[in-house]
Every structure is written in C-alpha cells, then in structure tokens.
C-alpha cells in the first residue's frame, strides 16, 4: 500500500484490496417530524434524523470488520442498510462488485442466500410459536436448498451440531432454551443458506460474560471453518478488540476513525476514540485513575455544527465548530476524520477530558 502523507484524502489505495463489500457515501435519514396538523398549528419545523450521514468503508473477504460506537451513533442502522431492511437515502453498497443499495425485494432474492444476519436480542429474534427445527429450516425451504423432509431433517441436525446443540433440540420451542443457546440457534439459522457474509448486530450484548465467551469462540471457529466474512456491530470495545481485524468508530452517524484493530487500540488518533478507550475498565488493577469523557452524546436530531464532536473535544477550535472535517489517511493506515489530526495539533499520549 503506497504511503499517503497526512492530509491526503482517503480512497487513494482502494484498488489493491480484495474487497467483498464496499460502502461509499452511505446515508440514511429518517423523517421524525411531528404530524402535519401539529406542524401547521404549532408552527413546528420538519425534523430530520440523520442516523447515518455519509460513511465509507471496505471489508475484505474472510476478515472481521467491526463498527463500534455508543447509542445513537448509527451502527445498527448501518447493519440494517447493508442487509436490505432499510433503503439508503444516499450512497452505494457494493457486494462483490454489484450495487445492492436500491434493489427491490425480488432483485435482492438471489443475493440474500449469501448475505445473512444475526440479531442482538436472543429472546425476540426467534419466533416463539415455531419449533427450533422449523426456525432453522426456514432458509432451506425459502431458498429451495433442500426439498425432501428427510433432507431438511438431516441438514437441520447438521446445522445444530455446528453450533454445539443436539439434533433432538430441534423439537423444542425457543422458550425452553437459555439466552446463549438461543443465540446459537440464531447462528444455525444464519448459516443454513451457506452465506459468505454475516452481519452480526451486537450478538453478545444481551448475554452473560461467560456465555459471551462461548459464543465469541464459536463464531471464530465457524469463521475459520466456513470462510465467513463478518461485519460485527458492538458498543463493547473489549469484545471488538478481541474479534476484529479492522475497526470503524462511529459518532453521530459519521465515521471518526477506521483502522486495523492493532493500530486502533495501541495508537488511536481521533480524540473520541482515545476517550472511548479510556472508558474500558482496568482489570489489571494498575490503579490508574480514569478521567471519564465529558458531556453526553447530543440529540441526533439537532447535532452540533461542523465536527459533531466539538462540544466534548478538548482540542476544538473555531474551524472545528464551523467546518465538517473530511477523512484523511495517516501513514500507519488509519483513516481519521479530524481537523486536529490533519493539522498535527493533537498530541500523543492519554487524553485528559475537560470538566
């Protein structure tokens, strides 16, 4: 990859990557205006929620790319855009070279086999009235992958064994299982169509930590065995550091920083990333006194002007308040969106938050 000096726009070195997914300028706005009558009578303005406001990233085959951020940053919306649950307001989503952003349900149908999703809530992601074997078999029937009931039964048993459940568990209902087991069932369902690409929306956030370890290990094993590519969404930085090859940090609908995992966690650039890393509790008990991030995530309907992080950033200048920063590539391969980094203003070392 050619060295791009600080200040060079991102995108200069994309051609050399073997990307299976490329997202460019992806945006999704929601109209959350009050009803028409209220707007007329109370003279309230239209309100647009810019959940995702122009993001670019790429994922190479077989890698795990994580999107991390706090509530309201838009990462779950990105997951749903990629999988086709929402239509983007702008931008493109290229899956193996083909733009899937605006496809209709019929056009999307053949691609769905290869692009599946695992959801966050193990209690809501399985139909409580269906038996497990029907839940796991649904993709098989929908894509016509197995046509005989013997074939379906065999394949369901095989899928359940991949996720370390017994074939006999197929006869039960979801409520007979614990959260971790239900998540395994979700994974079995997602694997049924032999996908290449899995979007994982906070798959372990609702699970206890020891169950989380089981599921994360399982997902790693499955990735190796079936050559899967993961888009991993999470708010938990420690989990993300454990599973990812590359990481994107989102804030209020935009990407603050995209970098290889090692680089992001050892040499973070963007002030938000650095403050976020500081919130991870210190289990090695070094007695380091953390200075927490100041302020709260602003209301996404009325985001701050310019760089949306400026109210909480100790390095904010007038330019930050006025001008939206553009992504730049740093020498070690990170893509950062920050005026301070561009200008070389942001020093190394831990970030001390303002009160």
């Amino acid at each position: 990859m050619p060295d791009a000096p600080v200040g060079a726009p991102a995108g200069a070195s994309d051609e050399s990557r073997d990307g299976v997914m490329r997202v460019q300028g992806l945006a999704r706005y929601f109209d959350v205006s009050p009803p028409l009558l209220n707007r007329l009578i109370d003279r309230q303005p239209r309100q647009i929620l810019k959940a995702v406001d122009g993001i670019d990233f790429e994922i190479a085959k077989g890698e795990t790319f994580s999107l991390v951020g706090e509530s309201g940053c838009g990462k779950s919306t990105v997951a749903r855009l990629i999988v086709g649950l929402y239509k983007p307001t702008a931008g493109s989503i290229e899956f193996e070279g083909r733009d899937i952003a605006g496809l209709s349900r019929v056009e999307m149908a053949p691609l769905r086999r290869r692009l599946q999703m695992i959801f966050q809530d193990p209690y809501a992601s399985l139909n409580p009235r269906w038996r497990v074997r029907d839940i796991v078999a649904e993709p098989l029937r929908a894509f016509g992958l197995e046509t005989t009931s013997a074939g379906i039964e065999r394949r369901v048993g095989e899928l359940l064994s991949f996720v370390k459940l017994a074939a006999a568990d197929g006869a039960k209902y979801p409520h007979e299982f614990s959260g971790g087991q239900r998540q395994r069932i979700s994974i079995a369902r997602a694997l049924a169509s032999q996908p290449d690409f899995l979007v994982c929306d906070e798959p372990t956030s609702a699970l206890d930590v020891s169950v989380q370890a089981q599921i994360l290990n399982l997902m790693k094993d499955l990735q190796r065995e079936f050559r899967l590519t993961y888009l991993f969404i999470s708010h938990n930085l420690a989990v993300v550091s454990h599973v990812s090859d590359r990481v994107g940090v989102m804030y209020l609908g935009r990407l603050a920083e995209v970098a290889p995992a090692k680089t992001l966690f050892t040499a973070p650039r963007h002030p938000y990333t650095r403050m976020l890393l500081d919130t991870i509790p210190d289990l090695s008990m070094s007695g380091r006194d953390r200075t927490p991030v100041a302020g709260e995530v602003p209301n996404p309907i009325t985001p701050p002007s310019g760089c949306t992080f400026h109210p909480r950033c100790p390095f904010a200048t007038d330019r930050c308040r006025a001008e939206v920063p553009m992504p730049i590539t740093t020498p070690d391969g990170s893509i950062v969106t920050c005026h301070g980094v561009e200008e070389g203003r942001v020093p190394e070392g831990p970030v001390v938050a303002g009160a």
Partner: protein
Amino acid sequence: MAGNPLLEVRNLRVEFPTRRGILTAVDDISLHIDPGEVLGVVGESGAGKSMTGAAIIGLLEPPGRIAAGEILLEGRRIDNLPYEQMRRIRGLEIGAIFQDPLTSLNPLYSVGEQLVETIQTHTDLTHSQALSRAIDLLAEVGIPAPERRVEHYPHQFSGGMRQRVVIALALCVNPKLIIADEPTTALDVSIQAQIIALLKRLCREHGTAVMLVTHDMGVIAETADRVAVMYAGRIAEIGPVRQVIQNPKHPYTVGLMGSIPSIDQGDGRLTQIEGAMPRLTAIPQGCAFNPRCTKTLDRCFVQRPDLVQVEETQVSCWHHNKELAHA
C-alpha cells in the same frame, strides 16, 4: 476489620413457593459490609444477587420471602420488622439505586418535588429548607444550573442525568448504606464511567457504604473494596477485590475472569466454561458448580462446600478446603 460491621447478613435464604415446589433463589449466604466500604456482589443472571439486595432492603416481591437467616443493620435485626418500621429505615438508613433511571423516577412529578418529598419524609426541614437542600444535591451530582433544573420533569433529562438525579435521591438524607443494583448497565459506556466516578466520590465524601450489585467485573474493579462472587444462589468466593480479580481461587471465578475479553489479550481464544448456570429448579447436589468444573473431587458431588478462609479470601470449594487433605 476493626469495629462492628454496618450490615451483617447471616445464613440468608430466600425462597419462592410455586405450585411446582419451592425455588431457592438465595441459599444460605453470609456476608458483611463495614461502614464506608464498597462491597461488590457480582454474578451472572440467575445467581441471586439482585434477590439478595432486594431482601436486605425489604423489597422482595411476594410470593418471594426470607425463609431463614438474619439481616442486621448496626446490630439490630431488620429482616423481621413490620412494614411501617422498615419503611422508615428504608430511605433514611438504607438507600437504593436501581438499574433503569426511567422507571426509578415518577414521571408525573418534577425532580425537585421528589427530592423534597423524600427529604421531608425523613427529616424535620421545612419546604423551603428542603428545596434548597435539593438544589445543593443536584449541584453535588453534577447537574448544571440546578436552580432551574430542579423544576424539570424526569423526561427532560437524558439517561445519564436521570441516573445522577437517582443518586441524589438516594443520598439526600445521608443513608449509611446504599444498595445499588446494576446502576450503570442501561447507560452508554462513556456515561457509565462518569456515573461510577461520581458514585465513588460521593460515597467517599459522605462516608456511605455501598453494596454494588452487578454482572460487570470492570465496574467492580474500579469501585469496590471487596467483592463477593455469587453462583446459583450461593457465594463462591468473597474477598478483597484485588485478590479475587488477579488471583481467583474458585474454579468458577477463574473461568469468569478468563472469559472477559480485554484489549491487551490479543487474538487468542477466550477461556470458556462449558454449559450454563443451572436453573433454580435443577440445582445439582453438592457443589452447584460440579457439572461444569474440571477439578471435581468425589466430595463435590455429595456435599456442598463450606466457605473457608484461604489466604486473604474466603472460598467455597472442596479443592481449597484444607480439611479435605485429611479426609
């Protein structure tokens, strides 16, 4: 451990009679909290930690009830008090912070009214005195412009701000002990750090002891002095936080610490404990952890281990029980 403990729990057992039999949610646990110290109670879902907190503060939902054991606050028994007496203790001597700030505050009353109501219930202050104390409290918990915000309703605060109000509410009459049940779980990570720092600072300044119930080991590491690890309604290990986290003895604690991903760990596999915590209806005989433990002895399947002192911590595991060497 000079002086008498502030809170003592002896052989507490919490049961739920159902038509299928009696479920034991908390099975014979004993612990104590010294004045001003922070005791963490950590465990996964179903371990019984929330039940313990609820039993101490007297908010167990029927048909759940305290079936055995004693709870003593400064030497006096509080588990068998009539409702009226317990109500007076609650709030004045024991405060509570719950997980969801949205439902902890009454949405129909302003924040100031709720604070004033609590203050006036437990002290003799007049309304205006109580109001000015409420404003001081809001300032203390870091709410900007408290004179103005005191009239606002809960929905006008963000999640983190609401939790600060809840902390103010818990501290307003200077209780000796606060039971905090998952106080930061529902908040964003950056807000969590703020709230934990606030709670730590305030409790240190007011000399309040805290029983911090959570599933998040990170919060415990940052905040607690001592920690109790609960499993299936029993205490597996209890001791100084540094010891339990860095030198865990009980196989469950060892597995738990190994399951927690950390940034410096790199890409290796996380330690995983096979299986899952048993349901209350199916707790194994002997040590509740025996189906999942790799270090089982014969005795583990027969008899429940006692809590014994091993170096600086107390562990409930036959593996660490010196008597066994002679058995």
